[in-house]
C-alpha cells in the first residue's frame, strides 16, 4: 500500500513538472514574440506601448514634491495613455542611488533635484541633455544658466532658491545696507535688552557653512571659480585664494569667537532658527524654507537684501531645482515629451510652487507667485545671485572651505595663512 502511494506521487511529480515546463515555454514564446514585433505597422489600430517599454515613465521624487505632480501626470496620462509613476525616494540618498542604478538599467526615466548635481551626473554619464528651444525664453535667465553645463542644458528648472536676510521688524524697524550697519543695529538691540544675539546664521559645528557665508564673501569680491569661455565655471581658474579671499578670511576672524562674536560656530541651524523664532535676534541669514515657521510664530518679518561687507554686491548662491532625464531611459521620447511640453506648463509650475513655496522658475508662474511680498523679495535677491557651481570639483571645495572657515571663526591659527593653505590644498586635489 505504501509502495503504491509512492508510485502515485511520483507520477504526480512528473505530470506537474511537465505541465510547468510547457507553461513556461508557452509564456516565454509569447513574451519573445511581443517584444520582437516593433516593426512599424500602419494597420495597428492600437500600438502596443508596453511592447516598446513605453507604458510607464518612472520618476524619482521626494515626498514633499510628489503630490504636486499628481495633476500634471494625470493630464499626461489622459492625453497620451502613458502613466508617470512617481516613486518617492529619500532625498539624502537619491543622487547616489541614481548614479549607481542608471548604468545597470534599473534607474528611473526622470529624477527631481537641484542643479548642482549635474556635474556629478555628467561625470558619470547618467543624464541626457534636453533641448528647450524657444521655451527657454519663458524661464528666468538665471535658472536656465544654472541648468547649463558645458554649453548644454540638462534640466527643466521649476524653482529657484537662495538665502536672504530675515529681519524681525519689531526689534529693528529699518533696512540696513551694509553688514556694519546690521551689526551696529544688532548690537544696539542687544544693548537695549531687546535681543540676545545681534545676528544669527546657522553653522554646522563639524563642517562649517560656506553656503550661508558666501554672500558676505562675494561682497568682498571673493569668488570660488572663474568662468570659462562658454559662461560655465572653470575648475582651472580657482579664485578662492586671491587677495580678496584672504581679506575675507581676516574679516571672518574678526566676526568670529575671538572677535566680535557676530558669527558663532556653536550655533547650529536648529539653534539659530529656535532663537530667531523666540524673538531673541533681529537678524537671521537663511532661506525661504524657514519662512513658513517664522510667519506661523507671528513674528513681524521683513525680507531684506543681503548686506554688503566690503562694498561690492552681496551675491548669494542660487540653487535651481529641476527635472533631469536619465541617459539610459528606454522611454526617452515619451519622457522628453512629458518634460518639455508638460512640466514646462504654467499649471505644473504653479502647483510645484504651491507645494514647495520656492519662487518658480517659469516667468509667468513667478509673476503670479510674486504677489506674495516674501516670494517677490527672495526672487529679487535671487536675480542678483550666481548659480552654485555644479562642476564635480566643487565637492572638493566644500569640505576644505567649510573646515577652514570653521577654524577661522573659532580663532584657531592665522586666518590669512589658513586661507592660503586651504586654496593650495584645493588646487592640489583638483589638479591630481
Amino acid at each position, binding site marked *: 500500500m*505504501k*509502495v503504491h*502511494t509512492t508510485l502515485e*506521487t511520483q507520477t*504526480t511529480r512528473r505530470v*506537474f*513538472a511537465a505541465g*510547468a515546463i510547457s*507553461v*513556461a515555454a508557452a*509564456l516565454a514564446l509569447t*513574451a519573445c514574440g511581443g517584444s520582437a514585433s*516593433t*516593426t*512599424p505597422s500602419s494597420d495597428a489600430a*492600437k*500600438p502596443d*506601448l508596453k*511592447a*516598446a517599454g*513605453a507604458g510607464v515613465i518612472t520618476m524619482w521624487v521626494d515626498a514633499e514634491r510628489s503630490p504636486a505632480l499628481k495633476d500634471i501626470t494625470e493630464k499626461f496620462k489622459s492625453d*497620451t*495613455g*502613458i502613466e508617470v509613476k512617481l516613486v518617492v525616494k529619500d532625498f539624502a540618498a537619491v543622487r*547616489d542611488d541614481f548614479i549607481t542604478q542608471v548604468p545597470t538599467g534599473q534607474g528611473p526615466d526622470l529624477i527631481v533635484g537641484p542643479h548642482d548635481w549635474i556635474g*556629478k551626473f*555628467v561625470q*558619470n*554619464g547618467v543624464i*541626457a*541633455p*534636453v*533641448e528647450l*528651444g524657444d521655451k527657454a525664453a519663458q524661464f528666468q535667465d538665471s535658472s536656465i544658466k544654472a541648468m547649463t553645463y558645458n*554649453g*548644454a542644458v540638462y534640466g527643466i528648472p521649476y524653482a529657484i532658491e537662495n538665502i536672504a536676510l530675515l529681519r524681525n521688524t519689531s526689534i529693528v524697524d529699518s533696512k540696513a545696507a551694509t553688514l556694519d550697519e546690521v551689526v551696529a543695529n544688532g548690537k544696539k538691540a542687544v544693548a537695549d535688552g531687546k535681543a540676545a544675539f545681534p545676528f544669527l546664521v546657522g553653522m554646522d*559645528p*563639524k563642517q562649517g557653512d560656506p553656503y550661508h557665508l558666501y554672500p558676505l564673501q562675494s561682497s568682498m569680491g571673493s569668488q570660488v571659480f572663474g568662468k570659462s569661455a562658454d559662461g560655465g565655471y572653470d575648475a582651472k581658474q580657482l579664485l578662492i585664494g586671491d587677495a580678496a579671499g584672504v581679506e575675507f578670511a581676516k574679516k571672518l576672524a574678526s566676526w568670529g569667537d575671538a572677535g566680535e562674536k557676530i558669527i558663532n560656530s*556653536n*550655533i*547650529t541651524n536648529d*539653534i539659530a532658527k529656535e532663537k530667531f523664532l523666540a524673538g531673541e535676534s533681529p537678524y537671521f541669514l537663511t532661506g525661504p524654507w524657514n519662512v513658513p515657521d517664522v510667519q506661523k510664530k507671528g513674528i513681524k518679518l521683513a525680507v531684506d537684501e543681503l548686506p554688503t561687507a566690503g562694498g561690492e554686491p552681496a551675491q548669494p548662491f542660487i540653487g535651481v531645482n529641476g527635472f533631469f532625464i536619465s*541617459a*539610459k531611459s*528606454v*522611454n*526617452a*521620447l*515619451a519622457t*522628453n*515629451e512629458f518634460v*518639455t*511640453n508638460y512640466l514646462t506648463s504654467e499649471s505644473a509650475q504653479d502647483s510645484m510652487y504651491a507645494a514647495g513655496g520656492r519662487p518658480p522658475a517659469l516667468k509667468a508662474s513667478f509673476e503670479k507667485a510674486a504677489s506674495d511680498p516674501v516670494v517677490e523679495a527672495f526672487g529679487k535677491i535671487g536675480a542678483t545671485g550666481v548659480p552654485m557651481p555644479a562642476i*564635480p570639483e566643487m565637492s*572638493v571645495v*566644500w*569640505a*576644505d572651505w567649510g*573646515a577652514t572657515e570653521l577654524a577661522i571663526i573659532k580663532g584657531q591659527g592665522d586666518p590669512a595663512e589658513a586661507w592660503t593653505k586651504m586654496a593650495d590644498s584645493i588646487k592640489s*586635489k583638483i589638479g591630481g
Partner: protein
Amino acid sequence: MPKPDLRELPATQGQPSPEQSVGSGARPTAKPVRHPDSLKGTILKVVLLGLVDAFAVYILMMLFLSQSWPALAVSSLVVLAINWIYLRKGGLPAKYLAPGVLFLLVFQVLVVVFSGYIAFTNYGDGHNSTKEDAISAIQMTAQKRVPDSPAYKASVLTKGSDFYLLFTDPSGKAQLGSSEDPLTEVPEAGKDSTGKATSLAGYQTLKFQEIVANQQEILKITVPVSDDPADGTLRTADGSTAYQFKPALNYDAATDTFTDTDTGSQYRDNGKGAFADANGETLATGWKIDVGMDNFVRAFTDPSLRGPLLGVILWTFTFSIASVALTFVMGLFLAITFNREDLRGKKAYRILMILPYAFPAFLSGLVWSGILNPEFGWLNQTLLGGANIGWLTDPVLAKISVLVVNVWLGFPYMFLVCTGALQSLPSEIDEAARMDGASAWRVFRSIKLPLLLVSVAPLLISSFAFNFNNFNVIYMLTGGGPRFADTDRDIGSTDILITLVYKVAFGQGTGRDYGLASALAIIIFIIVATISAISFKQTKALEDVN
C-alpha cells in the same frame, strides 16, 4: 524553500524500504506521522517544491528576456540541483544543507566576492559603468545645438518599414528626410491649421502613441541638413519638435578615439579608464577598469592618506579595546551589585540600567552631540554653569567624549551578559569558598571571574569586533572631527577605520571612490579576523584550564 521533514529521517540509516518503515512499529513510541511515505507529507512536499519551481521558472524567463545568459545558465543549474536533491530518495544531509548553502552563497559569498572584486577596480565617481556606456554618454553630451539655428516642427511618417521625418521650418517650408535620405523640399505636403506639415501622399503619418511605440528607432534618426557636415543634423527628442545639432566630439570606432570638431585634438583611451588628449586632459565620463593592486598601494602611499591612516589605525585599536574594557568592567561591577539577593527594587534598577541599550545608537549619538555643544549644550550650560568647554571640538576631549558616550551605550549589554553568567554559576561554589575562609574579593578573583570569563570571553571578542567597526557612535557624535590639520582629506582625530572607509566610499570632499574603500575594507577585515582568531585560540586555552 521546502523544509526537509522528519519523515525522511530513516534515510540516514540506510536505504528506506517499506520493511524498514514498517519496522517503526517495532518502536512503540514512534509517532505514525513520521512515516516516510505519508500522503499528507508527500503532497506538502510537492506543493512546496512546486512553488519554488514556479518562482524559479519566472526568474528564468526574466533572465531569458533580459538576455543575461551567464545568470540564466547558473540559475538553471541551481534549479535542477534543487529538484534533484529533493526529488531523489535518500541524501538527507543534502536536503538539510541545500537551503543554507544557497543562502550562504547568495547573501554572503557573492557579496564578499563582489566587494573584494571592487577593491581591484577603479569603480567610483567618473568610473561608473562600462566603456560602451561611457562612449555613448560622451556622444550624447557632445551633441550641441547649432547656435542660432531655427526650431523645426516635426511629424513622423512611415513608408514600408522606414521612418521619415517631415519638418516645417519657421518660414513654413516643408522638408522631408531620414537618416539615409538628406533633406528634400516637399511643397505638396499637407498642413494642419497651425501651418505644420503633417502628411504626405504615399506616407503614413504616425500618431503620438505609434511614435512612442517606436521611439527607439525614431530617436536614432539623424537627418543631415546639407552636404556640409558642419551644418549638423536634425534630430527630434519628442517627436514634435526638431533642432539642428552638431557634435562637439566625433567618435571613430576604428581607432577608438574622440576628435574635437573645433580644435581637432584627439582623445584616446589612456589605459586608466578615461579618454585623454596629449596634454592629459580627460573627457568627463570614464569607465570602470581593473587596476590590480593599485588601491592597496594607494592606501599606504597616497600622502594625504598615509599619515592619517596610521593615526586612525592606532585610535581604532585604542577606541575598541578601551570600549570593551570599560563597558565590561562597568557592566560586571553593576551586575555583581545588582546580583545581591538582599537588594530591594532590583527589577526597577535593572530596567533603568538597560535603557541606554534600548535606544538606537545613532539617535543617542545625535542627542549626545547636542548635549555636548560647547555653548548651548546641557552639560556645559546646566551642570558646569555656562563653562565653554569644547567637548567635541578639542581633539583630546573629543576622544574622551566618544569613549564615554560609547561606554554609556555599551555597558547595559555587558551588564545583561554578566548578570546571566553570574546567575548560572552554582551558588555552592561561593558557599564552599566562604567556608574555607576566602574573602569576597578572593572568591571573585579566583573563582567567579575565571568561570565567568569562560562564557563571556567569546562575547568580549565579538564586542571588540563590533566596536572596531562602531560607525554609529563616531559618525553621529563627532563625524570623525575635529579634522586633522596635516591632511587635505576630511579625516579627523576621532575617525576610526570604518568611518574613514565611509568617507572614502561616499566622497566627503574628493568624490566617491568605491575601489579604494573596498581595499580599505579588506584591510580592516584582515585585521579583525587575525585578532579574533588569536583571541579565540586564547579562549580555548582558558577553557582547558578549567
